[in-house]
């Protein structure tokens, strides 16, 4: 299996002079050239000359001993995170020419840490999807099997990591959009505690659910990136008033320090190959001395519909701003105001986004609000309280997804089948707790991911467990393609 240097190893190599940032940047540019035509992970790519100039500056800083935590590390950013130096389209025709006049806080923090932004990654339009097929710029393909999807909505951020087209990436996770792609591409993704990472500059989909989070080829890399982007931001009123987390120098978790529990409702519906890899990993953890307990979370049986109602309702409200005025479209003639708005939205949005806006409007409309939206927020309380009760006692483990990566087109024809892919991941978003997805193994040559959830702000525990699991599986730094 091909293995690539992790970001942490790169920084070490730059520091001790065994690798030149410029040489590495060229290598990544070559990988992008080799894969991108088939994978379509990027919507916008930085010019190679601009990447090299920044890599040369990084080389100078290492020479002078003035390097910062991510100096010379190549980072890809999901295209719903605002950048003033590159277009930010959210994979939508509605924003195809939009260049934000400001950077998201996470981007500012990346740049301040010395990272080089290589490009903006492909995704489901406005992050609405689980396969990265609903993009106005074409679907993303999974580098492990080009006939299959990489998961979504942060599929581009995962796919470019999986083929070596970047060292680290940023995704956003509203109901599993970091963890599903991580699971399907043998990469690592963390959905942070709600409020740990600033959402300032994130094009919103479901405000009360979503977080920007790190994606990487190793747990330590994801921890390093989360350390850089995390912490209070006065520009985001939902951000928690805490210092950036200290995560990058933690030790692996030892047996006896924490136990794991597996809610049967979060495994039972899994395909046989997924369940087999998952239980195999649990068995390994047990044989190493970890306590793995069976648990029950009956409340999660209604988590999926509750999640979708809340997400769609928030989406309908958030996307009301796209009226053809603030973000104008040249192909819609001026005239009657309401007709202009309806036409601009019809042409700018893709089918899935339009459908979700209509459903969200429906769930919030007079006569249906109590039956849908209010009921969903009540279920959310039940789910959150149940998850917090269990997470106080143990780390909650489950497969990250119930099925192996589907083939392109296999799931998008049936919306309910598509939504079911998020059944294990939405729980963490409803509860606001952190969740880590990482490789558990392979089945039929395809990656299978495991998910761990902890109590709020328990990212340190997740990282430590992740380091332990990584040692067991040996899947640190794996990449698709021939070695």
């Amino acid at each position: 299996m091909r293995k690539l240097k992790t970001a942490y190893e790169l920084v070490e190599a730059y520091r001790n002079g065994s690798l030149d940032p410029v040489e590495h940047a060229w290598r990544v540019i070559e990988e992008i050239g080799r894969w991108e035509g088939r994978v379509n992970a990027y919507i916008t790519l930085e010019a190679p000359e601009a990447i090299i100039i920044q890599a040369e500056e990084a080389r100078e800083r290492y020479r002078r001993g003035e390097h910062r935590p991510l100096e010379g590390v190549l980072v890809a950013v999901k295209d719903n995170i605002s950048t003033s130096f590159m277009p930010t389209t959210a994979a939508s025709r509605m924003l195809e020419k939009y260049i934000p006049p400001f950077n998201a806080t996470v981007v500012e923090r990346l740049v301040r840490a010395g990272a080089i932004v290589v490009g903006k990654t492909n995704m489901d339009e406005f992050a609405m999807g689980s396969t990265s097929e609903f993009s106005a710029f074409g679907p993303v393909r999974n580098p492990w099997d080009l006939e299959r999807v990489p998961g979504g909505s942060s599929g581009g951020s995962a796919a470019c990591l999986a083929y070596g087209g970047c060292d680290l990436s940023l995704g956003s996770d509203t109901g599993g959009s970091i963890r599903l792609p991580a699971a399907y591409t043998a990469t690592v993704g963390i959905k942070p505690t709600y409020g740990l990472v600033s959402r300032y500059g994130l094009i919103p989909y479901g405000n009360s659910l979503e977080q920007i989070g790190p994606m990487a080829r190793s747990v330590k890399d994801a921890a390093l990136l989360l350390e850089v982007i995390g912490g209070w931001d006065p520009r985001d009123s939902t951000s928690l008033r805490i210092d950036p987390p200290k995560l990058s120098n933690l030790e692996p978790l030892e047996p006896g320090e924490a136990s794991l529990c597996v809610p049967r409702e979060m495994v039972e519906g899994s395909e046989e190959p997924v369940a087999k890899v998952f239980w195999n990993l649990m068995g390994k953890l047990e044989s190493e001395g970890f306590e793995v307990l069976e648990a029950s979370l009956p409340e999660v049986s209604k988590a999926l519909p509750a999640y979708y109602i809340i997400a769609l309702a928030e989406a309908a409200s958030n996307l009301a701003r796209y009226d053809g005025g603030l973000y104008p479209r040249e192909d819609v003639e001026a005239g009657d105001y309401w007709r202009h708005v309806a036409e601009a939205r019809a042409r700018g949005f893709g089918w899935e986004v339009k459908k979700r806006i209509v459903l969200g409007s429906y769930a919030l409309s007079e006569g249906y609000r109590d039956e849908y939206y209010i009921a969903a927020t009540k279920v959310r309380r039940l789910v959150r309280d149940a998850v917090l009760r269990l997470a106080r006692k143990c780390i909650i483990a489950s497969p990250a997804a119930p099925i192996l990566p589907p083939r392109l087109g296999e799931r998008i024809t049936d919306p309910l089948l598509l939504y079911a892919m998020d059944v294990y991941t939405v729980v963490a978003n409803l509860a606001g707790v952190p969740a880590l997805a990482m490789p558990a193994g392979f089945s039929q040559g395809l990656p299978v991911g495991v998910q761990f959830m902890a109590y709020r702000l328990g990212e340190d525990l997740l990282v430590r467990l992740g380091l332990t699991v990584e040692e067991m599986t040996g899947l640190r730094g794996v990449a698709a393609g021939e070695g």
Partner: protein
Amino acid sequence: MEDGCRAVRRAVELARIAFTSEELERLCKEASRIAEYLASVGEAVKGLDVEPLYHVWEEEGGLRDRIEDRRVPLESFLPPERLDGEGRVKVPWREVK
């Protein structure tokens, strides 16, 4: 969705999106099926005395007490002819001829 397509058409009006009649037909089918599935949440809380939860950390959510003053300079995204030189923006259709 009890009243099927009529409710979808009402939601389409609220959503301010134009659909062709073929699209509307497809939307009715898909949306009705999804709405029927989503309505199952009601069963889970029927007869239970539960308060809605709008923010996961309800005890810590709230408005910020300090607003950061970080302005984007107008000249960074507007052409010079749209600026009046005193920090204000010229609105073309309001210009006095």
